[in-house]
């Protein structure tokens, strides 16, 4: 297993690629990074992910796997060192539940708050706040979703506080409400203090510029 090469097709600004990088680093897996120049998708990407044509794609010994959460599970099963998911099936189910919640509820509501205007924007922001409040219930009083150390959900969602702050700034909207979600907010900060996670973050000023560009494009240019 360790003899075969590992390649990651990613994009410097993608939080989904970041998930995979975090997992690779935490599990001390050597890999070759291939940065895609989106939207000019390389022939390699189209060959390795013909269904979705998206990054991240992990290629292990020439065999491709797409979808970041699927990749995380694969990494954990193929490399036993520094497990990301807990051993206990019930705890594993909880981890999977919360990672899905982030992707299916938190992300879309944050994106809505980013792209909509006026009353619709405020409604989306309210929903995003409520989703974060619910996410907080999965964290409880733990240091990390993974317990004493980072785990599956921390890797899946650790970047979300930072990204949401950018959305708040650009779209002029409030999503992270300290009074409403104190435990989650302190997790947002704590998780990014973990050295391995912190050192992999893309340059935030560049990400902000990119987001500003998207915002202009998606909202028709008005600020």
């Amino acid at each position, binding site marked *: 297993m360790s003899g075969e090469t590992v390649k990651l097709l990613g994009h410097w600004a993608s939080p989904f690629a970041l998930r995979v990088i975090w997992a690779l680093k935490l599990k001390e897996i050597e890999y070759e990074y291939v940065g895609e120049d989106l939207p000019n998708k390389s022939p390699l990407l189209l060959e390795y992910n013909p269904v979705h044509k998206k990054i991240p794609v992990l290629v292990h010994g020439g065999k491709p796997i*797409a*979808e970041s959460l699927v990749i995380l*599970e*694969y990494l954990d*099963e193929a490399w036993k060192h520094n497990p990301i998911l807990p051993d206990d*099936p*019930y705890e594993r189910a909880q981890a*999977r*539940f919360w990672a899905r919640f982030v992707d299916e509820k938190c992300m879309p509501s944050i994106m809505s708050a980013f792209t909509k205007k006026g009353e619709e924007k405020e409604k989306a922001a309210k929903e995003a706040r409520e989703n974060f409040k619910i996410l907080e219930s999965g964290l409880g009083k733990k240091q990390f979703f993974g317990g004493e150390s980072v785990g599956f959900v921390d890797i899946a969602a650790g970047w979300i506080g930072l990204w949401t702050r950018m959305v708040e700034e650009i779209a002029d909207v409030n999503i992270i409400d300290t009074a409403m979600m104190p435990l989650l907010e302190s997790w947002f900060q704590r998780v990014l203090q973990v050295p391995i996670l912190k050192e992999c973050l893309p340059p935030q000023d560049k990400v902000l510029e990119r987001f500003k560009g998207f915002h202009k494009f998606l909202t028709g240019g008005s600020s």
Partner: protein
Amino acid sequence: MGEEVKLFAVWGSPFSRRVEMALKLKGVEYEYIEVDLQNKSDLLLKYNPVHKKIPVLVHNGKPIAESVVILEYIDETWKGFPLLPKDPYQRAMARFWAKFIEEKCMPALFKCAGTEDREKAVEEACELLKLLENELEDKKFFGGENIGFVDIVADFIGGYWLRDIQEIVGVKILTRENLPKLCEWSDEFVNHVVIKENLPPRDKLIAYFRTRFGPKP
């Protein structure tokens, strides 16, 4: 063994049927609790406060929600009749296709039952199902010789749900002309010894679909 397994479900839901199929295939005894979606019990709301939906599996008092999460839990807890393959790469492929069915196929199929831009919705659904069919290749089931994770997640497509809805709504999506291999797979699916005992009563389902999707007087 003193295990207590409860399932909160709805008779016609492909999502809770997935869980029942998994439990039955593994020979796990469970208590079935029918939920009235118009009048959700306090117990359901206690066990699934986040989504307030079915299915919810409660194992020795501990609740798990989201059908695909439940399937993985069942596979990890009861070892007989494995749903996912052993090999990590094959497992990744199964999870990938399960996600594809959930996130792409199901929403596209539901759109076909709606009234907006139906022709376009049908075209998109057919394209997505074509991709799924390609994944089947020459296998009897997505799981190979026997039913597996992906087959169960695809129950809406393989079971009678899609067939009956498309007839009632008057669209052609899963047809022998369009998707011959997928049709063949769905025949195998509904005839599987365990699955066939675990599909909702067809006449009851058709009556429900007529009310929900049929032409309004």
